[in-house]
C-alpha cells in the first residue's frame, strides 16, 4: 500500500505536517513533530531510491489522471538521489536545529519557523519528484516563499534586506521560468516533461522554443546562483539563521541544479543545446565563477560568507559537468551534487556550533577555539579537506570525474581551472583552520578559553555528515552507481 504511493507520500507528508506544526504551542512540540516527519520522509526517500536503483522508472499518476493530462510524478535514479539528499539533510538538520533555534530565534516564532521549514522541505521534494513542468513551478514557489520567510528570521537586521534581495531575485527567476513554461505550452500544448521531450525535437528550429529555453535557463540560473546571477546568495547565507543556512546551502541550490539537468537533458535534449551557444556559455561562466568566487572567498572575514562564496564556486563545478555534456561530465555533476551537500552540510554545521558558542560568525572571534572545541575543529578540518578534494574524501571523487570529463574532451584550460580551484580552496579552508588552530590573540584569549565543546545534539548530526564525507570517499556504490544509472536515463544512447 505504502509502496504504491511512496512518491506522493514523500511530498504530502511534510505538506500536511506544516499546518499542524504551525498551530502547535511553541516549545519542543513543533520541533519534535517536524523531526519525526523529516525522518519518515528520509526513510521513504531511501526506499524510493532502492526501488529505482537498478534503472527502473516509477510513474505515479496523481489522482488517477493519466499523463499527459494529469500530473505525473516520474521517478528515476536522478530524482530519487536528489530526494534522498534533500530529505537526508533535513533529517540531520532538524535534530541539530533544536538548540540553535532556541538561541537564534524568538520563542514565539518557533512553531512558525518549523512550519516554514516543513513547507520549504515540501517544495524542494516536490520539485525533485514531479514530472510536470507547471507543477514544478508551483513547488518552486512553495520552497522559495518559505525560504524568504526563513531567511528573514535571522538575528541581525541585515537578514531582512538579505531576504528582500533574495525575494526580488528569486521572483524574477520564477517569473522567467513561468514565461518559458508558457511559451512551451503555447507551442506544444503539453506540460508533461516526458511528453514535451517527445514533441520538442520537431520544433527545434522554431524561434519560440529558443526563447522559451532562454527564459527557463536564465530563470533557473538565478535560482541556483550561477555566476554572475549569484548576488543574492552570499547575503542570504550570511544573515539567515544558522539552521536555515545549513539546510538551504546543502539542498536548495542542488535541487535547482537538478532541474537544470532535467531541462537540458530530458526536456530539451542535449542535441538542442549543442546547437545553441548555451553549453559554451556555461563553460565560460563556470570557469570565471570558479576562479573569481574562490578568490572572493579567500578575502572574506566572515565564516558564513566565506563558505557562501565557496558555494557559488562549487555550484559552478556542477554546471561545468552539464556544460561538458558528456556521460562523465553529467556523472560528475550528480556525484558532486550529493557530495557537496555532505561537505557544505558538515561545514556549516560546524561553523554553526562555533556560532552557538561564541555568538558571532566573524573569523576573528573564533581565534584559538580549536583547543576548546576539538570535535568541531576536526569536523571543519575533514569537511574542508573534502571541499578541497583531498583523496580519501567524497570531494575527491567529484573532482576525479570532473577532471576526467574535461580531459576526455581535451579541454586543458578547464582541467587547469578545476585544479586551480582546488588550490584556492586550500587557501580559504586553511584560513578558517589557522584561526582555530593557532593560539588566541591576546584580547580574545580570556573569552575563548572559557568556551566549551558544542552540545551533543549538534555534534552527532555534524559527525554523521563528516563520516559520510569519508565513507563516500572510499565507497562510491551509492553515489557513482546511482549517478551512472541516472545518466543512462538522462542521456539515452550516449553510452
Amino acid at each position, binding site marked *: 500500500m505504502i509502496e504504491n504511493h511512496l512518491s506522493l507520500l514523500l511530498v504530502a507528508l511534510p505538506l500536511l505536517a506544516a499546518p499542524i506544526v504551525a498551530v502547535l504551542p511553541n516549545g519542543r512540540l513543533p520541533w519534535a513533530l517536524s523531526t519525526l516527519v523529516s525522518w519518515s520522509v528520509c526513510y521513504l526517500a531511501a526506499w524510493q531510491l532502492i526501488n529505482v536503483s537498478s534503472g527502473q522508472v516509477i510513474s505515479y499518476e496523481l489522482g488517477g489522471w493519466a499523463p499527459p493530462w494529469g500530473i505525473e510524478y516520474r521517478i528515476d535514479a536522478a530524482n530519487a538521489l536528489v530526494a534522498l539528499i534533500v530529505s537526508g539533510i533535513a533529517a540531520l538538520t532538524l535534530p541539530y536545529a533544536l538548540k540553535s533555534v532556541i538561541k537564534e530565534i524568538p520563542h514565539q516564532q518557533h512553531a512558525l519557523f518549523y512550519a516554514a521549514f516543513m513547507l520549504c522541505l515540501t517544495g524542494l521534494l516536490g520539485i525533485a519528484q514531479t514530472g510536470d513542468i507547471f507543477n514544478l513551478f508551483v513547488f518552486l514557489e512553495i520552497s522559495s516563499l518559505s525560504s524568504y520567510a526563513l531567511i528573514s528570521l535571522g538575528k541581525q537586521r541585515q537578514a531582512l534586506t538579505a531576504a528582500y534581495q533574495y525575494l526580488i531575485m528569486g521572483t524574477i527567476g520564477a517569473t522567467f521560468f513561468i514565461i518559458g513554461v508558457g511559451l512551451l505550452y503555447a507551442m506544444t500544448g503539453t506540460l508533461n516533461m516526458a511528453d514535451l521531450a517527445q514533441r520538442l525535437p520537431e520544433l527545434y528550429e522554431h524561434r519560440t522554443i529558443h526563447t522559451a529555453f532562454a527564459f527557463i535557463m536564465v530563470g533557473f540560473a538565478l535560482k541556483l546562483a550561477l555566476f554572475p546571477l549569484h548576488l543574492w546568495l552570499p547575503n542570504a547565507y550570511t544573515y539567515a539563521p544558522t539552521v536555515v543556512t545549513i539546510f538551504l546551502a546543502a539542498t536548495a541550490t542542488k535541487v535547482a541544479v537538478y532541474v537544470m539537468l532535467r531541462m537540458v537533458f530530458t526536456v530539451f535534449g542535449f542535441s538542442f543545446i549543442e546547437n545553441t551557444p548555451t553549453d559554451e556559455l556555461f563553460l565560460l561562466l563556470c570557469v570565471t565563477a570558479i576562479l573569481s568566487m574562490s578568490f572572493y572567498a579567500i578575502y572574506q572575514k566572515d565564516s558564513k560568507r566565506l563558505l557562501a562564496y565557496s558555494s557559488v564556486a562549487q555550484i559552478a563545478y556542477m554546471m561545468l559537468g552539464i556544460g561538458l555534456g558528456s556521460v562523465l561530465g553529467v556523472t560528475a555533476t550528480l556525484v558532486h551534487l550529493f557530495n557537496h551537500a555532505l561537505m557544505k552540510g558538515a561545514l556549516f554545521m560546524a561553523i554553526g556550533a562555533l556560532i552557538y558558542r561564541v555568538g558571532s560568525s566573524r573569523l576573528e572571534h573564533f581565534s584559538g577555539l580549536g583547543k576548546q572545541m576539538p570535535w568541531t575543529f576536526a569536523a571543519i578540518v575533514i569537511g574542508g579537506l573534502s571541499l578541497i578534494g*583531498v583523496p580519501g574524501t567524497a570531494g575527491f571523487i567529484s573532482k576525479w570525474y570532473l577532471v576526467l570529463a574535461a580531459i576526455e574532451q581535451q579541454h586543458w584550460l578547464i582541467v587547469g581551472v578545476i585544479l586551480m580551484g582546488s588550490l584556492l580552496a*586550500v587557501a580559504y579552508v586553511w584560513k578558517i583552520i589557522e584561526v582555530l588552530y593557532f593560539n588566541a590573540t591576546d584580547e580574545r584569549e580570556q573569552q575563548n578559553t572559557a568556551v566549551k565543546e558544542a552540545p551533543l545534539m549538534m555534534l552527532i548530526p555534524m559527525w554523521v555528515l563528516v563520516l559520510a564525507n569519508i565513507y563516500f570517499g572510499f565507497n562510491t556504490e551509492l553515489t557513482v552507481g546511482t549517478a551512472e544509472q541516472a545518466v543512462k536515463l538522462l542521456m539515452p544512447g550516449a553510452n
Partner: protein
Amino acid sequence: MISLTSEQLIILAILLPLLAAVLIVLADKRPNLREAITLISASVVALLVITLATRINAGETPSFDVFDVVPGITVSFSIEPLGMLFALVAGTLWLVTSIYAIGYMRGHHEKNQTRFYAAFAIAISSTLAAAFSGNMFTLFLCYEILTLSTYPLVTHAGTAEAKRSGRIYLGILLGTSIGFQLLAILITWSVAGTLDFQQGGILAGKLDPAYAGILYALFIFGVGKAAIMPFHKWLPAAMVAPTPVSALLHAVAVVKTGVFTILKVTLYIFGSDFITSSGASDWIIWFVAVTILLASLIAMTKDNLKARLAYSTISQLSYIVLGALIAVEMSLVGASMHIAMHAFAKITLFFAAGAILVAAHKKNISDMGGLGRAMPFTFIAFTIGSLSIIGLPPFGGMWSKWYLALGMVQTEQWILLAVLMMSSLLNIAYLLPISVRAFFAKPKEGVVYTEVKEAPLSMLIAIGLTSLACIVLFFYPDPFYNLAVDAATGR
C-alpha cells in the same frame, strides 16, 4: 608472529601506529604510559617490517585489494623489493627516533606532547602504507595523508614563524600534488586505463612518446616531497619543527616518500625502458643536476645548523632522483640504496643537532667552536654521519654513490658524473668544518662549556645506534643491496 600471513603483517604494520595514535590521545594525562605506547608500538612495527623483509628476500610477493573506490580504482597494497626497502628504513628508524624523541621532548620542555606523538604515529602509518601501496591511487592517498598529518608537527611551536612555515609547507606540498601530480595521475588513468604498478610500466605503447616527457615532468614536479628546485622551499621552512620531526620525517619519511614515489613512477608506471627510449627525462635531468649543486652551495652559506642540513637533504634527494632519471640498472640500484644510506647518515646528523640544542642551546654553527670537547660523543657521531654523507669508506654512504657513479659511467653521462663528484667535494666543504670547528677551534670570547654535558641518555643511545649503522652498512649492506638489486632488475 610467524604464524601470521604476510598480508596480515602488512595490515598490522599500517594499523598499529594508527591504533597507537588513538591510545596516545587517550593517555594524554599520563606521560609515561603515553611514551610506553609509542615505544611498544614502534618496537612491534620494527619487528613486523624486519619479518616482512626476510620473507620478501625469500621470494614472497604478498598483495591484496582492500576495496574498490570507483570501478577500476582500488585501495590495494602489495610489497615489492623497493617498497620493502623503504618500509624497512622507516619502520626501524621510527623506533630509534622514538627513543630519541622522549629524551628530546622532555629535555627541551616542549608543549602539546600528546599531539606531537599522535601526529607522529599517523605520519609513520601513512609512510608505511605509502611504501606498501599497490597502485598509484593508494600511493597518492597516503602521500596526501602524510602531508596533512605532518602539518601539526611542523607548526608545533604555534608561533607566527611556525604559522608562516606551515603555509609554505602546505602550499608547496598540496599545491604541487594537486596541481601536477593529480593531473598526471588522471592523464595516466585516461590513457592507460589502470593505475596498477606493473613491472615494465603501464604506459609503454599507450602513450605517444612525444608526450612522455611532459607527463613525466608533471609527475616529477608533482612530487613536491622530492624537493627538486624550484619546489624545495618547504623543506627549509619545515625546520621550524622539533628536531625529532626534522630527523625522521624531513630527512627520512616525508622526503623519502617523495623520491620513493618518483622511483615507483619510473619503474612501474613508465618503466625504465620507456623512459630511456622516449627520452622523457632528457631535460628534467638538468633541473635535478642544478638542484644538487645549487643546494650544496646554499648549504655552505647557512649558519643555522638545521638549515644547512636541510639544504644538504635537498641536494642528496636529487641524487636519488638523478638515479631514477638515468634509469639504467646500476643507477637504479644506487638510487634505491641511497634511500637507506642517506637516511641513516642524515638522521645521525639531525640527532646530533638536536642533542646540541638540548644540551648546549646552540643553533648556529658559528657558536659551536670548541663544543666538541664538551660533547665528544655527539660530535664523533656527527663526524661519522658527515663522512657517510660525503661517501667515503668505511661508511655506508659510499655504496650508493658508487652505484650511482657506475650508472653514469655506463650511460656515458660525463657531465652528470662531474656534478656528482663536485657535489661530494661540496659536501666536504659544508659538513666537515662543523666538526673541525667543534673539536679544534676555540670558543667565542667569554664562553665556557664547563656547564655543558652530553644530552640525555635516551638521545645518546639513538645517536649511537644510527652512527653505528652507518659503519655497519659499509661492511654489511646486503639487506638493502639485495632489495635494491631486486627492484632494479625486476626480479
